[in-house]
């Protein structure tokens, strides 16, 4: 009896420990077979989680054999969780993100070409379907087309006599920005410094947006040619250095993180924040209501969406890209029927009703059916929507959509290991623009062989 108990316990223990290594998941071979599709996503906007639940419930009632398992990730931890799952060979079937060459490199990104019907393709507005492609192959369906600009505090801009409506419609040059910055720099009512512009020391979007407005689409162009190796990048660095030296930007920039950057903008210590999307309009309107209701303390801010200034001799460019669902298969492939089911869920989560994402974020729609479904219901002020539309005309698509995966990965590494430390050195005054330009040239030559 005692021995039987011992053997039973050992068997149970083995069962428990070996169960940890077992791979789950269902496979379907016929359209009516039971199947489970996993979706990892983010709280894209305030109501997204609730809306997604409703949409999934509706889908499941129409397709009772397919279970959709959704997981709402946090923006902070989600990317790491996904990266680990992907590199372990077990990504979710659908993941909310931009398409990325590194995903394609794993050979687990699902090529959607066989499932893209003409009806679906024709529903996408010109130039938007490409946002889900890498080198012409469709891996994702964009839910919205994001665009990055700068954000202004209307009270401070008005007080300084800045004609922001003209800037929204005609854009502005670096020289014009410097003239405006001189007027926007001073002291707040309580004597704290007020800067014309605030950015943070760890993100790369500031230099990316400015260099894009100085004739460089990215570190590489879409043919893979190294761009940051001539006078244009030196000019861009010198422009930033000038802003720091003049006191238009905080001397503490190197140590500011994105949260502090936003705090300074909210506190009226900066007239312009270096990264904004039209959604700020909706977000700040909500914040203003909360201030009125007494649930949030602070000064109410009326948002002004601004284009990024461009070098005097270069055209204005707006940084854009697409985000939506990207489809994956797993190392232990679940078969063709599962891939079809995955696409069916993907298309459902990106359909006309899903245009709510673009609408909530005050961004241009990506599908005709979405634009029709939300016609007349647009959120965001008229001025912001008009500015966003104007800026969309100068859209510069990410070069990574055209680059091969290996080159895109090299560019990413160059940005993290060469650009980021050099930007921090520029902000803290530890390196001159000339030294940085030289470093880019030599390290770029090593990395890209050009």
């Amino acid at each position, binding site marked *: 009896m005692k021995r039987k108990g011992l053997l039973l316990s050992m068997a149970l223990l083995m069962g428990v420990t070996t169960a940890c290594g077992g791979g789950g998941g269902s496979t379907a071979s016929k359209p009516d077979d039971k199947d489970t599709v996993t979706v990892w996503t983010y709280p894209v906007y305030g109501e997204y989680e609730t809306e997604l639940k409703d949409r999934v419930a509706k889908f499941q009632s129409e397709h009772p054999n397919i279970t959709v398992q959704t997981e709402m990730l946090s923006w902070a931890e989600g990317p790491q969780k996904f990266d680990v799952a992907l590199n372990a060979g077990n990504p979710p079937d659908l993941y909310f993100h931009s398409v990325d060459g590194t995903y394609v490199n794993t*050979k687990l990104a699902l090529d959607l070409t066989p499932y893209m019907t003409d009806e679906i393709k024709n529903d996408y507005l010109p130039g938007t379907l490409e946002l889900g492609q890498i080198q012409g192959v469709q891996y994702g369906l964009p839910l919205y087309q994001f665009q990055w600009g700068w954000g202004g505090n209307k009270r401070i801009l008005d007080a300084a006599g800045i004609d922001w409506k003209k800037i929204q419609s005609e854009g502005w040059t670096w020289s014009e920005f410097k003239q405006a910055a001189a007027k926007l720099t001073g002291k707040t009512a309580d004597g704290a410094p007020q800067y014309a512009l605030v950015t943070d020391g760890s993100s790369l979007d500031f230099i990316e947006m400015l260099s894009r407005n100085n004739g460089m689409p990215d570190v590489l162009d879409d043919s893979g040619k190294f761009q940051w190796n001539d006078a244009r990048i030196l000019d861009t660095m010198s422009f930033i250095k000038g802003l720091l030296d003049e006191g238009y930007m905080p001397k503490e920039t190197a*140590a500011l993180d994105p949260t502090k950057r936003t705090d300074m903008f909210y506190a009226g210590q900066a007239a312009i924040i270096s990264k904004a999307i039209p959604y700020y309009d909706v977000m700040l309107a909500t914040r203003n209501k909360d201030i009125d209701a007494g649930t949030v303390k602070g000064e109410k801010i009326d948002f002004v969406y601004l284009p990024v200034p461009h070098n005097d001799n270069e055209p204005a460019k707006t940084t854009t890209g697409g985000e939506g669902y990207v489809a994956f298969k797993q190392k232990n492939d679940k078969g063709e029927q599962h891939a079809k089911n995955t696409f069916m869920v993907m298309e459902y989560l990106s359909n006309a009703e899903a245009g709510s994402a673009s609408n909530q974020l005050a961004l241009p729609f990506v599908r005709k059916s979405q634009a029709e479904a939300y016609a007349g219901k647009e959120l965001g002020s008229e001025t912001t929507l008009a500015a966003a539309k104007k800026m969309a005309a100068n859209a510069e698509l990410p070069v990574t959509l055209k680059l091969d995966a290996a080159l895109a990965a090299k560019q990413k590494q160059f940005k993290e290991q060469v650009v980021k430390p050099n930007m921090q050195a520029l902000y803290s005054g530890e390196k001159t623009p000339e030294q940085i330009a030289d470093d880019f040239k030599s390290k770029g030559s090593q990395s890209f062989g050009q």
Partner: protein
Amino acid sequence: MQTTASPKRTSSGSGRFLREYGWAYLFILAPVLLFLVFTLYPVASAFVMSFQQYQVMGSTWIGLDNYKHMIGDDVFWKSIRNTVIFTIATVPVNILITFVLAYLIFQMKNKAQTFFKATLYLPAVASGVTISVVWLAIFDPTDSGLLNRFLGLLGIDPVIWLGQSGTALFSLILMNWLGSHGAGIILYLASMGGVPKSLYEAADIDHASGWTKFARITWPLLKPTTLYLLVTGIITSFQVFISVYLMTQGGPNFATTTIAYLIYQTAFQFYEFGLASAQSFVLALLIVIVSVLQFKAFSSDVEY
């Protein structure tokens, strides 16, 4: 007198052996299996991976290329340098602070001891993330930052603590000095309580000074605890990650990039898992070498 003889492993004896001692092996089996599955297997896989260009759908064997690439990489050497500086600056100072605090607490009465033990142990209970967020507010670079306000009272200009190469690593070291002493204090207090009072009484009879009693009795008898804190402290500081990840992300200009952070970056930002594995094994090797040297240097006159 009773003696315990080990059961003979004859065919009938093995059944008896299993009946009498089987449960013990069953209990041992659980941690051994966990060790095999969650430690040994991943370590062995990572070792193999360090010679490969890792790809989910099939890795390529590239021999020593990852190790060669690592040796030729400036950032890798910077990370080693930063890690060594961090370790040298934090471990001895931390042990000294811990010892002094424990020594002061040991002189107190029971209630006061309990209060200070609990208070100083609190940071050990708090998560590294929470502590880092608090320190981010302390190191706020603007005039309104806590530390800068304090400096302002002394007439000193604000310092951009985490934004300059000259001060960023020091800021992380300062945070470490002022944070993690709770566990060490508990260990030292337990050891101090174990020192026989008769030794101090004998020293008193010989008119030994306070310093002599400390140098000849207290310190030598606390050496095993000190050695333990030294070894574990060095291992922990070689793996410093959370504060770097949350506060500086290795910057500015690699001034705070430690080896553990570099491994994370290589693996999860650049997806170079083979190279990250190679870096991990160099870190493990460093820790082993330093630990062996410490045992050789300090354990000769330690009695357990």
